């Protein structure tokens, strides 16, 4: 149990997907303008990451047993894409309230590198099924944490008075992300 919590906490704080490993930068910079959309996106990512890991881990074991592990990339992306579509349809029909909260973000994260990244990472690191699920959960929570923190930072960046003209907009966003990422480096070495 301690091992599982260590895996989860270290991927939330030390190896944060967005701020330390550069996975999922596009949604991190694109959807973090408003706090409520940042939370919605983060929650959808947690959901899809755990679901995708739950589906792809057994599939890889099957591929591996037939010695066609090299098909991993093709199979994983297809499984994730169809899974997300399926879940979206099911949610729309049976749980409309959840679909309303997460639905719009679901198709967007099919092609999110953080989701494919976590499934491949679980295989590369030889994690067990339970460890993989916790790793995916932690990665999702870390993504949500980074999104929420950055949405707060961007709220105060709206006023660009005094910023040199070439730095307005995108460069300013990137440099504030650098400072946020710097602060997360303070966690390094927290878990072995």
């Amino acid at each position: 149990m301690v091992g599982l919590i260590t895996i989860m906490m270290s991927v939330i704080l030390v190896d944060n997907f967005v701020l330390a490993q550069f996975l999922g930068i596009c949604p991190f910079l694109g959807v973090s303008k408003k706090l409520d959309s940042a939370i919605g996106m983060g929650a959808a990512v947690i959901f899809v990451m755990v679901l995708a890991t739950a589906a792809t881990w057994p599939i890889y074991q099957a591929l591996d047993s037939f010695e066609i592990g090299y098909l991993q990339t093709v199979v994983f992306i297809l499984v994730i894409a169809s899974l997300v579509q399926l879940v979206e349809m099911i949610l729309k029909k049976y749980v409309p309230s959840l679909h309303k909260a997460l639905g719009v973000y679901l198709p967007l994260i099919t092609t999110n590198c953080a989701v494919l990244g976590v499934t491949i990472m679980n295989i590369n690191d030889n994690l067990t099924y339970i460890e993989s699920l916790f790793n995916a959960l932690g990665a999702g929570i870390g993504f949500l944490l980074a999104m929420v923190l950055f949405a707060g930072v961007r709220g105060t960046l709206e006023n660009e008075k005094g910023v040199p003209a070439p730095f307005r907009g995108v460069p300013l966003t990137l440099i504030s992300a650098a400072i946020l990422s710097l602060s997360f480096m303070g966690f390094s070495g927290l878990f072995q």
Partner: protein
Amino acid sequence: MGKKLAILTKGLIKENPVLVLLLGTCPALATSTSLINGVGMGISATAVLICSNIVIAMLKRIIPDKVRIPCYIVVIAGFVTIVQLLLQAYVPSLYKSLGLFIPLIVVNCIILGRAEMFASKNSVIDSALDGIGMGIGFTLALGLMGGIREFFGAGTLMGFSIYAGHIDPMGIFMLAPGGFFVYGVLVAAVNHFTANGTKKKSFSCDDCPLFNSCSLKEDEEVKNKLEKKGAEA
């Protein structure tokens, strides 16, 4: 002929995928820790981009419109697997240092974006030229970022020592914050030198290559309609 040349060269500066269109940010930040890694990643992605652009341009009449994104993804994933196996066999050191980001070329927005925005509407030759131009632009940007980060962060360039031990290199440039910082400064530099020429881009859904097939768009359209109705009332 001039038109073909324009397709080829627009990816270099004017529509540079990383520095102007702001696509493919994840691999740009993650693999630009040294000049070699940056250029290696750039070349791998270029190979996939050219091949997938050609195949998708050939298949554009056969692929049904409704399932086009999954079809593009399968084509791209096939080429990524080929590149992955080739790298593993012939350049194992690069394969090791790029690691996870080789399979992740599949979800690189540049490749899917060019398939959706260019290859699905243009001829095979134009699509191939577009792939070459965009790929070189991507490689240039990654090489530039990798060179800057390696120079300041490790004091070397292509593995050769530059400072010769006189100055301690600033290791932070090799780490995550350095990546964001160098990228930010480069975008600012491009903004400065092209202040009048190109329109300003921002990080938002409007610039996402998948915007047309994404349900956030429908959501926004509904919102806009509601707002209009509200304004009329």
